[in-house]
């Protein structure tokens, strides 16, 4: 089991890519979630949206669809699209690891979103691979930088008072 560790530099690059996608796809909101439902980053208007819940439900959605795919002998359904009265959401899996979701309305179109998502997927995949490599290296070499290096049992106790 490997944990998901995000460092400052990768976060900045992911953030930049999401913002680019948000603008080029003319989206309302773009967000990246890990497969377990933790929100990684987002771009766009998150006012009035509970992004934590959104992240968890999106991951649940992908997990459920993945379950259906398995039952049907598919590896996965890598793209989901939900069409609403006003807003639509395009959800796809990136690098088999994280979920990219794009919320958009009539100011954009499914075609544009698909095209832009495809382009961003490549960029995000590269960042994620580098992140994995780095996380491995950090774990081996620079344990002293870990948030847990200095944490004592008392610190943990303190949290629960």
């Amino acid at each position, binding site marked *: 089991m490997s944990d998901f560790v995000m460092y400052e530099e990768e976060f900045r690059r992911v953030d930049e890519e999401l913002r680019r996608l948000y603008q080029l796809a003319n989206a309302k909101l773009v967000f990246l979630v890990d497969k377990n439902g933790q929100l990684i980053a987002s771009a766009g208007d998150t006012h009035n949206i509970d992004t934590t819940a959104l992240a968890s439900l999106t991951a649940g959605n992908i997990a459920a669809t993945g379950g259906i795919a398995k039952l049907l002998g598919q590896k996965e359904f890598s793209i989901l699209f939900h069409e609403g009265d006003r807003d639509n959401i395009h959800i796809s899996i990136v690098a088999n690891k994280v979920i990219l979701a794009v919320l958009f309305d009539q100011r954009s179109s499914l075609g544009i979103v698909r095209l832009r998502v495809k382009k961003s997927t490549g960029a995000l995949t590269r960042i994620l691979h580098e992140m994995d490599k780095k996380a491995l290296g950090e774990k081996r070499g620079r344990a002293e930088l870990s*948030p847990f290096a200095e944490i004592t049992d008392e610190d943990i106790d303190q949290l629960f008072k």
Partner: protein
Amino acid sequence: MSFINYSSREINCKIVYYGPGLCGKTTNLQFIYKKTSPQQKGKLISLATETERTLFFDFLPIALGDMRGFKVRFHLYTVPGQVFYAASRKLILKGVDGVVFVADSQIERTDANIESLEDLRINLADQGYELERLPFTMQYNKRDLPNVVPVAELDSLLNPDKVPAFECVATSGRGVFETLKNIGKQVLMELKKHY
């Protein structure tokens, strides 16, 4: 699988409440939601049927506070307890950092508890986990009911490894936060071991 974000200085962990149908998993989360201050909690999401049986999962994010400059957050999930939702249960265990097993103390639910615990082991194994190696807390719920199995017997039936176990009445909240604190601590201690 926890998520450590150095940029926003956050540590996010996933805790799953597991157990047989109607044992009180959702009630645990509802009590935690009710008693946590608004700044500390997100929305309680329940994907339930019209009769309030959990269909997919309940979800409650809570923020504990800061630890050496890192915000610590727990994402609490429940699984649907009913036997035929097996496929959904398996999905929710993905990436779990710690498990709470909520046992229904009533005599007539003894078999259901044993079956559910076995189901937990199998589903964890499918995801590549071993229950013995995961932070794990046992909760004996519904201790206020008249027809309950004695704790010693529950211990020998469900808890041979002697993980921390708590007596609980989820409807009134007795034991709910004790359980949560225990699993939370175990999860963080485990993370500390790895980093």
